[in-house]
Every structure is written in structure tokens, then in C-alpha cells.
């Protein structure tokens, strides 16, 4: 009887943990192109930066990122890591149009630098060149909590190529900080403690989806 109970318990634990693991992986995209027959899968994004920034404790300085998210995916057999960042500032005067154009430029030879928990720095090459424009909201406008200042923000989604070796390295431990190179500029993300395993998690999820022939979404 004892043996039967312990087998049942072990089976129950295994089942529960497997379910929990599967529940962890969420996807925002899984489709097969009708013409090329190439399957594209992308995990749901994970917020890396602290939500405290939403309560007036936003990181300051020219290189600070207000919100940084990470997601991973693949297109056919090509894996990628995607960084989604929001850079914002409050300014007293209406910004001229030229200042909104090409606010963040990421040239082709740029990298994403990832500081791992053991102190090593990994470098991922950007998939292509990018350029992003800014938007502004006047004082008291939608989404702008300031009565006096214009809210200027730039949202950037940047893809970085991942190979098998890099996926093994990045999933082996936590990451603590990231730097997005953007020409002579850069943007830094300090990963909050509870999100330090999130990059490894989203990579693991897309690897799992790649191995599965059943659609994950």
C-alpha cells in the first residue's frame, strides 16, 4: 500500500510541476506563412524593469530606460531575442519636428550587451539597422500626467540574432543588466531582482515551441 501511495504522490508531483512549467510559457504569436510555409513563434514579453518607475521613481539620465521588456522567438530555424524599450522625458516646450525624427538610431554593427550573474558580458549582434521616431503629448493630454510639461517618448523594438551556443549560455544563469548600443548613444536596463531569470525563461519557451509540432497558441 505504502509503495502504491508513494508512486501516486510522485506521479502527482510530476504532473503538477509539468503543468506549472507549461503554464509559464505564454506566446503572443504562432503562425505558419501560407506562401513560404515558414513557422513564426514569439513568446509573450516579460517586463524587466521595476514597476516602481510608474510611481515617480523612474530611472534618470540620458541613458535610462523607463520600461524594458524582453521576448524571444524564431522564424523557421532562426532564433531571435527582441528588446522592447520605452525612453521618455518631460520637457517644458513643444519639441520641433526634427527632434522627433530618428530619435533612436541603431546601426547595423550594434550589439545588445548582457551582464550575466557571474560577471561575464555576452554580446548579441543586432539583426538589422533600426530607426525610431519620438512622439509627444501636450500638458494634460492623454497619458501625460503633467500639467505644465510635454511628455516626449520613444518606443523601440529591436531584434538580436541568437545562435544555439548563445542560447545555451543565456539560459544557464540569470542576467542582471543590459545595454542597448545605439550609435554613439546607449540605453541601460537594470533588471529587477525577480525578473533576472526572465530572459532565460522566454528563450527556453521558444526552444520548447520549436521542438513541438503542435501549435503553442
Amino acid at each position, binding site marked *: 500500500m505504502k509503495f502504491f501511495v508513494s508512486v501516486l504522490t510522485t506521479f502527482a508531483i510530476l504532473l503538477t510541476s509539468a503543468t506549472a512549467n507549461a503554464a509559464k510559457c505564454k506566446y503572443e504569436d504562432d503562425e505558419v506563412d501560407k506562401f513560404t510555409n515558414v513557422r513564426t513563434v514569439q513568446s509573450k514579453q516579460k517586463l524587466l524593469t521595476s514597476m516602481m518607475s510608474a510611481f515617480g521613481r523612474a530611472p534618470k539620465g540620458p541613458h535610462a530606460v523607463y520600461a524594458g521588456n524582453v521576448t524571444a522567438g524564431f522564424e523557421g530555424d532562426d532564433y531571435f531575442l527582441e528588446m522592447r524599450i520605452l525612453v521618455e522625458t518631460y520637457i517644458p*516646450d513643444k519639441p*520641433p519636428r*526634427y*527632434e522627433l525624427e530618428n530619435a533612436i538610431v541603431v546601426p547595423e554593427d550594434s550589439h545588445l*550587451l548582457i*551582464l550575466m550573474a557571474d560577471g561575464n558580458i555576452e554580446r548579441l549582434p543586432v539583426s538589422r539597422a533600426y530607426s525610431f521616431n519620438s512622439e509627444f503629448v501636450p500638458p494634460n493630454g492623454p497619458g501625460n500626467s503633467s500639467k505644465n510639461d510635454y511628455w516626449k517618448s520613444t518606443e523601440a523594438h529591436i531584434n538580436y540574432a541568437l545562435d544555439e551556443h548563445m542560447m545555451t549560455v543565456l539560459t544557464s544563469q540569470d542576467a542582471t543588466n543590459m*545595454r542597448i548600443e545605439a550609435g*554613439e548613444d546607449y540605453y*541601460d536596463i537594470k533588471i529587477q531582482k525577480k525578473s533576472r531569470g526572465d530572459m532565460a525563461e522566454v528563450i527556453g519557451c521558444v526552444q520548447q515551441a520549436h521542438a513541438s509540432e503542435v501549435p503553442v497558441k
Partner: protein
Amino acid sequence: MNKPITFATIIAFLVISSAADAASCKFKVNEVDLFTKQKLVATEWYSMTSAMSSAFKILVADRTSVSVAAMSEGDQNFIAIKLKFNDGVYNEPSNEDMRDALLVEKGSQLVIILEDESQIVLEARKTVRGVTRFGDVGGNPVVESNVVVHYPVGDEDIEALLEQNAGFVIVSATAGRFAFLDSNSQANFKMNRKGRDRFTEALTCLSKA
């Protein structure tokens, strides 16, 4: 008994004055970069415009100003200059006029003329475009442009700047249709005593970081 007291007083005075000196250096940045492992230091901005001249400038609606900071990235030191220009206009300028209002190209010169008339010539680290705004000062429409330029500076030049006072600062730039610069595409600033002191203060603070 007198002697030990005097000695102790001198020591105490020295300790207090050196602490006060160190405390007077305010740094905006004083940290090691996580990725490059280089030490990054940047002093606060020191305005080189005296209070009197600032008051006069406000009276005549002239908001031109110049500030200085000292910075370092690893072994490389920089002098940073923050310039503000303004010019009266009749109508709101076009986007192109605003974009081309002020540009400091990589390699543009900063000339510092010392008291003995010798010159220190520095070159801008990278191309910087001015941040230009259209607004009004006392009901008069104006265009205002701000720019921050970093100039790499060697140890010899820093020593020379600490040894004797700077008299003039000349910044070369490219201006669009607004009267920010003279006919040689330069802005000249005569340093007053306060400006000189602040220039020296910024460089001294850098060496203490």
C-alpha cells in the same frame, strides 16, 4: 603646553579645511561603468557667467550663457562646455530652420587663450546638434538653442590650465539663419574672475575624484 595646542590646532584646521575642500566638489557622476569597467566622473556644471552680468543680460533679454564641467572616462579627460544662445525672430521658424540652428561638428575647435596669450586648442569629440526651441522672452518671440560639447583634453593642457588663468574661450560651430555666432562662425567668451575660478574648480575637482 602652548606648543602642543598650536600643533593640534594646525592639524585640526588642516583636516577641516581639506574636508571642506573635498565636500565643495560636487559630482554628477562618480561610478564605474558596469560594461566598460571604466571609471566615469563628471563634475556639476559651473556657470561662467557672473551674477551681475546675468542680471544685466536678463534686463536686455539676452539669454546667452556658458557653463563648464570636467569629465573623465577611464584615463581620458574631457572639458564639457554648455552653451545657450538666443535670437529674436518675427515669426515661428520652419522645422528646417530649427534643425539647422546650431551644429557643432566632430573636430570643431575650442580655443582657450591663457593669460600669457598662449593657446590651448581642443577638438569636439563628436557631432552635436543644438536643442532648439521657439518661445518668448518678455513678450518678444525668440529662438533659443542649447548645446553640450565634449572636448578631449590631455594632462599637459590640464596642468597649463591649472597653472595660469584662462582669459578667453572661443567655440567654433555652424549656425543657421539665427545670429548666434560671429562672422567667423565662432562664439567668444571673455572670462571674468568668477568664470576663471569655476573653470579651475571643475578641473581641480576632476583630479580629486
